[in-house]
């Protein structure tokens, strides 16, 4: 199990599924020291607290996300113990992350302002990863930085 240190961010959201059932999701972004990238952990559960299985979670994803998950060679879901809670969570496997992150930062102008690049790192990372789970980066998060 990768040795993780920092819990960056916690996000919760709610999904109205069919039949008036409500599903709740927790998303955690954890830094993986062994892959040296942020990793998205998530889990879903219903209103009784019963954890959702992967096939149920996939049904909650918007159609375009499900497509990204299936077709992109850089994103796939595994199940692993959450580094802090030691309960089984799902995560987007990080092995491809550094590869596609490099592509995002190929722009020399960005590299020149290295401070900005680091701040933008998480937002850029999330702009790709978020597509898989159907979450988008609010435009305000990006606009404030660019100036």
């Amino acid at each position: 199990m990768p040795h993780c240190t920092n819990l960056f961010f916690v996000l919760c959201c709610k999904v109205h599924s069919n039949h008036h059932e409500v599903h709740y999701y927790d998303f955690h972004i954890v830094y993986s020291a062994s892959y040296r990238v942020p990793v998205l952990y998530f889990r879903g559960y219903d209103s009784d607290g019963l954890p959702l299985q992967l096939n149920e979670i996939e049904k909650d994803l918007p159609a375009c996300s499900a497509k990204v998950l299936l077709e992109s060679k850089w994103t796939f879901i595994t199940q692993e113990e959450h580094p802090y809670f030691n309960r089984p969570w799902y995560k987007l496997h990080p092995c491809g992350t550094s590869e596609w992150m490099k592509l995002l930062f190929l722009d020399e102008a960005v590299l020149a302002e290295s401070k900005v690049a680091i701040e933008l790192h998480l937002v850029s990372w999330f702009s790709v990863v978020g597509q898989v789970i159907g979450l988008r980066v609010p435009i305000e998060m990006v606009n404030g930085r660019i100036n």
Partner: protein
Amino acid sequence: MAKQDQSGGYILQFAPFQSFVDEGFWHRLSSLKLNKLGIDDSPIPVTGFYAPCSHSQVSNHFTLLSESLPSNESEQCSVPAIPRSNRNRCSVPGILYNTNTLEAYHALDKKSLLKEEAKKIWEDIHTGKAVEDSAVLSRFLLISFADLKKWSFQYWFAFPALVFDPPATVVGLKPASQWFTLEEADSVSAACNDWRNSNLTADIPFFLVCIASNSHATIRHLKDWETCQGYGQKVLFGFYDPCHFPNNPGWPLRNFLALICSRWNLKTVHFLCYRENRGFADLGLSLVGEAVITVPQGWRDLLRVPNAVGWELNKGRHISRVINLAKSMDPTMLAISAADLNLKLMRWRALPSLKLDKVSSTKCLLLGAGTLGCQVARMLMAWGVRKITLLDHGRVAMSNPVRQSLYTLDNCLNGGDFKAMAAVKSLKEIFPAMEAEGVVMAIPMPGHPVSSQEEESMLEDCRRLHELVDSHDAVFILTDTKESRWLPALLCANANKITITAALGFDSFLVMRHGPRPLNSTHDLKAEPENALSADMDSLAMADSGAERLGCYFCSDVVAPTDSTADRTLDQQCTVTRPGLAPIASSLAVELFVDILHHPNGIFADCEIADSSNSGSSEQPLGILPHQIRGSLHEFSQTTLVGHASNCTACCSTVVTEYRKRGKEFLLQAINHPSYLEDLTGLTEFIYNETDDNDDDDDFVKL
């Protein structure tokens, strides 16, 4: 739904707390119960958490997490450290009654338990503790029964609320933004945000909102009530409201009003239901209302505890809730889903055409539970095969565990466990979902003749082996002598089963797949009509591939298998090999097996040799499917070879037909007289012809 009374106000109706239990809480409770509490069912202090509503469409829940319970390491269960609260979770004290049986759960006196907790709240109000530590106003009660075999949990929450009789009424409940002036609203928002952002106050769920005549708002602790009086200030009683309803305040207001009424003797109370959006005060979502209270008789009297309500409804009904967490808590189920997910990943990422279901449902028979058998079993398990039968007549010896990966020292004690049974046990310990069986039996071998008393049991063993081969889909011949491979090879050819042989030398190995059954063997007296049809299909398959039948382990043999173990030195008797060899051969054997399962022609597949013209153009995603792999550690080399079927002693049609025709008599002859097989297959003549050229002696006689 709201009832109007004569004063024009509506009966104040509160939205109940909605409880939510994170599965981590049940996990910790199970652990506590198993490791520490045992049958002790005294009440356990627990901590609940809630926060102001943060979304206009969803109420915030009253939550229990794993931190709600004391951890196993704490010294005393009765005095837990209060878990840290923050702006997203105010901690609330509560009590848990977890029973030992379902009957005891249903027999709990809910009325008196509720009354007892209500009494605590009442006392906290009267002693002033509720003013100092206002979270105690939302004190709660939880009853549960944890079935730790089925991982199911019955539970029921109660949020005791002291009842006003006659009930309080509300006048003018509206969004806060409509109640305050614009200036006041801005000031209140700012003050609330400060309160929420400070570590000292973020988790204090009840407070005073004081608005001066110049519209400036401040948030104060409840204990500062006296100092807020006068100066023309408006004072509202604010509280974190988890509820999102636009027409109802949340449950915490009930006991808050009880506190206000009995401490400060107010009959009209302005209250603020504080709610948020994205971490900031939302005065459109928040509500302000005026409550009109008639102080009930006897509320001065500490000893007369008012009635209380508060058992949580389950989807509108007065019944308990239940949750089953086997899938996420039962270690066996977790192991199964993790292993499955891992295999599926191979399919998603690298080989979408992997037939994992086919692999996992193939029933494998492993003849031999030694170095090869243990490793093959583990590799099969890694590929998802669930049904494995191991056959071996030996016991685990002291020298075995280092090389035979399913055994430990414990298996060697007291004479040694039977290998087949120890292997099965070990497989299940590694992966509980394995359906593994052990058969303790020796394989009858030609060249090891049996006495007439032993004939019966030997034939029984043959029959048993025949049945085992028939009832499995693939057979791995992993024994340690050549002659012990004969009967299995014959039976596999007879039954047309996928057969993989692995054999070790000191630093070299052979891994091969046997060819399919001989074509002509089906034309015999006892043949069923279906056999004829399948024989035709076999011929078609062979014809299609345009190939000769591939051979078995014995097809390149010139002599019949005989006793190879007599008159040998110790190191020749037990196969002494370089330790790395068995794992290499075993791994190749399993990968070859998986390849066969994926080949469209299966057992009939022609051989493919690794050469430069083949590489990269292979049609099968898993690569080429060779017939034989021979490797040497001496040169770290490996080659693929082909050997076509011959008139061998095990798989040729003569032998198979003879077996089918004469069964027991055939077996007795073959086992007691190994030259019988040579005669039958004409090997004798072959040898005779071969040697005759060089022999001048006319009297040469060969048995």
